[in-house]
């Protein structure tokens, strides 16, 4: 296994991977917050070529048994009708399967129906829960996935994926903001989502009820904290206006 890895990493280092058509999902460009210009009028670049897609889809199907490992990638290549070394097109090896899972899950988030829910809070809760339940088929192997995501070389990329999930949540919840709370909203959902992922690992309740409750509870706590901050700001500004008025009236009296 270790020899496998050694061969793989040196091969990718010496440019064995395709040089053209970089895969945006695997790009190493660290632009942590940036999501590039999106427009419905222009087609988006596909994340994967058809060949890559078929290998990764087959590999992901083997994950419940083999885990997020090189072995699953090898099986994926074989199932898709390629030789074993075809996996060299993925310079990040097993992490490519993790990313494929993240990318496809995020795309499936677009199909979550939230238009029947009234408040933004309800929509956010539903979106996070539905997204986290997409981890269900691979949940027994998900510890490995998290370990791969936390590897220093993958960390920046994984955080970008996390941000994309929370960005997608607020986008689907039809929450539009142009202020600084754009950042705080996304940060809070990212925090809740990643905490829930860890919680889910040891959750044995049917249908992951406990995880769902955990998410709802965390979102309530978020709202409570937000309410507290808003109240303090309101109290401070009211007092500021009062004190100006007091000074004014004292001054007028002489």
């Amino acid at each position, binding site marked *: 296994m270790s020899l496998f890895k050694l061969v793989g990493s040196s091969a990718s280092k010496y440019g064995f991977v395709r040089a053209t058509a970089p895969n945006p999902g695997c790009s190493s460009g660290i632009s942590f*917050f*940036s*999501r*590039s*210009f*999106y*427009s419905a*009028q*222009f*087609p*988006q*670049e596909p994340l994967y070529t058809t060949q890559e897609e078929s290998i990764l889809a087959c590999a992901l199907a083997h994950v419940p048994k083999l885990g997020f490992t090189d072995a699953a990638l090898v099986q994926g290549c074989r199932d898709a009708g390629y030789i074993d070394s075809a996996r060299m097109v993925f310079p990040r090896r097993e992490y490519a399967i993790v990313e494929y899972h993240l990318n496809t899950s995020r795309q499936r988030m677009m199909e979550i129906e939230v238009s029947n829910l009234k408040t933004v809070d309800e929509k956010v809760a539903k979106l996070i829960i539905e997204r986290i339940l997409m981890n269900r088929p691979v949940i027994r192997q998900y510890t490995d996935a998290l370990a791969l995501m936390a590897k220093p070389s993958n960390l920046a990329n994984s955080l970008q994926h996390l941000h994309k999930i929370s*960005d997608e949540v607020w*986008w689907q919840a039809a929450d*539009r*903001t*142009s*202020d*600084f709370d*754009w*950042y705080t909203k996304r940060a809070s959902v990212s925090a809740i989502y990643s905490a829930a992922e860890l919680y889910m690992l040891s959750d044995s309740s049917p249908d992951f009820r406990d995880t769902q409750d955990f998410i709802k509870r965390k979102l309530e706590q978020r709202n409570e904290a937000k309410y507290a901050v808003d109240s303090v700001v309101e109290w401070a500004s009211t007092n500021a206006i009062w004190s100006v008025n007091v000074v004014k009236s004292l001054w007028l009296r002489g």
Partner: protein
Amino acid sequence: MARPLTKAQKDFLTKLIRVDQAGELGADLIYNGQHSVFKRTNKKLAPLIHHMWQQEVFHRQTFNRLQNDHRIRPSLLTPIWKACAFTLGASTALMGKEAAMACTEAVETVIGGHYNAQLRWLVENFPKDTDGMEEIKSMVKQFRDEELEHLDIAIENDSNQARPYWLLTETIKAGCRGAIFVAEKL
């Protein structure tokens, strides 16, 4: 369907919307600051400021809409732009009518040039009648013209009588250029 945008085009549009949104937020609050002073001290001037302010509010709303539609993050320093812009507007207004007009002159000079440069890039890099781009082009053009109109108004209202004129306008211009540079990145 058109072809996908190139990375350079996407990057430019991302930057354009972010920096212009921050800029219009600043403009909105500069006039807001000036108006909140002049409505007490100079009743004659207030309606003129109010007119310019309302145009800036419209610009800001337009860029807020674009920022949300195209899923671009707002500038990270939004709270700082807000505080700086309001302070700049209010403090120049407290210095008097001429100083406020000098501030407008300086800001609009930089912004007019900035919009002009963006418009030039858009015309050069998007062929005529590219889907969805004509809207952005005509919008930038309209906003540039309105900003330059504000510049004319400022000069007509004795902006060059401000003392110290040179120091005031050059400082504000340098500040605006610095803010544009930072807002494009952060």
